[in-house]
């Protein structure tokens, strides 16, 4: 499952970073996107909760990730594989 599929209140663990091939519209390229996400704390094993969503298209999304808060667009969230907690 990808982070972009989740909604407010969902929790889980980051499982991997894998920018998908077909949505290849990230200006900076997949490798760079992966590194930037890693640098912002989206690293395997980190736990997260979706805190807030934007008004239009529920985009962007704000997350608690480990002990910090980060916002990103769903488009970028698509690159993040997650394991939701039930």
């Amino acid at each position: 499952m990808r982070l972009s599929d989740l909604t407010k209140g969902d929790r889980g663990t980051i499982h991997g970073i894998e920018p998908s091939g077909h949505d290849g519209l990230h200006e900076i390229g997949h490798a760079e996107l992966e590194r930037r996400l890693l640098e912002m704390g989206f690293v395997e094993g980190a736990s997260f909760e979706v805190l807030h969503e934007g008004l239009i298209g529920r985009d962007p999304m704000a997350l608690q990730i480990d002990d910090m808060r980060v916002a990103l667009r769903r488009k970028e969230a698509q690159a993040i594989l997650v394991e939701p907690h039930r």
Partner: protein
Amino acid sequence: MSSEALVTRFALVGNPNSGKTALFNALTGSRQKVANYPGVTVERKAGTVLTPLGRHAVVLDLPGTYSLRARSPDEAVTRDLVLGQFAGEAAPDIIVCVADATNLRLVLRLALELKQVGRPMILALNMYDIAERQGIRIDLDGLARALGVPIVTTVAVRKRGLDALLREIDTLAADKIAAPSQWNAPTAAEIRQAHRNAEQILKQHVKPALRPDTWTGRLDNVLLHPVAGTAILLTILFLMFQAVFSWATPLMDLIDAGFASAGELVTNYLPAGLLQSFIADGLIAGVGSVLVFLPQILILFFFIILLEDFGYMARAAFLMDRLMGFAGLHGRAFIPLLSSFACAIPGIMSARVIDNKRDRLTTILVAPLTTCSARIPVYTLIISAFIPNRVVWGFASLQGLVMFGLYATGISGALIVAFILRRLLWRSATEPFLIELPAYKMPDPMNVLRGVMMRAQIFLRRAGTTITAMMVLIWFLSSFPAAPAGAEGPAIDYSFAGVLGHFLQPLLAPIGFSWQMTVALIPGLAAREVAIGALGTVYAVSGDAGDGTLASTLSHQWPLASALAFLAWYVFAPQCMSTLAVVRRETNSWTWPVVMFAYMITLAYLAAFIVYHLFSGVVL
């Protein structure tokens, strides 16, 4: 000890929101200087401090970053400087990695990366009081051993821990050992490994908060709420504009009066002639017409810095991101566009917060379309002269509606042009929106004040150099050659500006501009509202829009269609040399000011043409 040994340089490096700038301010106080790094438009903030052992230390406040792999020009400066690859600037002797003690995870990874650079390093755990209050227990000795760097704890806003930091600087400066740099841009695998190392260190030496900050979460529940949050943002913006326009007015009047009396003084004490005209009309009036915006700029930046320090600006970017995204702009473009309502110059300068070059250029190019306050006098004059003071739909003033319409046209113009620019020039996907939402913090009054003063300094320096030069040029064009003896028309008619006005008039005839209007546009290039003074000169009546003389003259001289076309022209036209000069500086190229001038003048011509033909023959 030789005198050379008593000098050292250290650089503050850290994540954004680590309180790095507060630490810089606490260390250097008023002994700081802001300039630009040569060749790039990144601000170089340097200051000096005396260490306990009497070393004169130069402190550099480097742009905040999460990694030495630079993503923006700001971050590239941090990287190049730290690595000693910056032309004309030696590597710092010591690196001080500044960390928010309540949020160590990401900065530990940065610290591990900085260690590879090989320079002596200190980790400063800033905001340590907040960490203590939250019950975060940090084993300082263990952490220092694990990282292999000395650690000091600081509370920058209370000036705590500064001595300890400077003593550490003394110790490291005495050794002056720098190993060769082993740093390479880390690969994804290396970043993951560094995360694991940081995680390991964190687990061993830092116990999580016993009383974590719950305020940030509670505030975010309201401030990031899709509906309530957006409504609050709009309310904040509304209050901000109220303040910018109402608080600034008395100060602006004061500055205006000050420059007017200075001009009078010169007129009274200097013999009439070129020198008098140059000082009174060229220098004093010219510089005054720009300086009059200083109060608005200061108030605007006061709010922006206050909100930034509070931690709200990242939230504003979050709330606005999707809306800006429609136009192909980044959520962060919101701040520069907002500033442009006061004046496009600080707006364009604050576009530096945008990482991506294309996003920044798009923002810079459309910023002058938002209605800056220099347009207000022009709008007010024309509206009061031509739009009847009538109530429509039972509640709305027609004059107010026209004013609103002009603002709305400017904003939608900016968004549409951004949309088109993105598609025409850069047919590419957008930069990721990926920002940290920092914990809310009470802004420190001294830091806010210092930030506002710094903005003032930058604006004044610019007004003192580039803008003054432009003013003198415009004065020259409007004053030379002088009117011949016994001339009947106004003197400006005989000047280069007048000749140019007459020459250009046939070009502007299709949009309904008379030669007087055309001539007024030329001094109006200095600053938009100067056109009013110029119209006053041309019609040889008082240039004061307030007493109604000029307004009534205009209402008799201009057809309605021409007046409305003039308004439409003013929404889009690049009637501000200072803006173009700043764009030249910020983009470091002549291409972008030229592109800006070309597209804006085209839009202005088209808009004025359409309006003129739409309203020809219409009587209100």
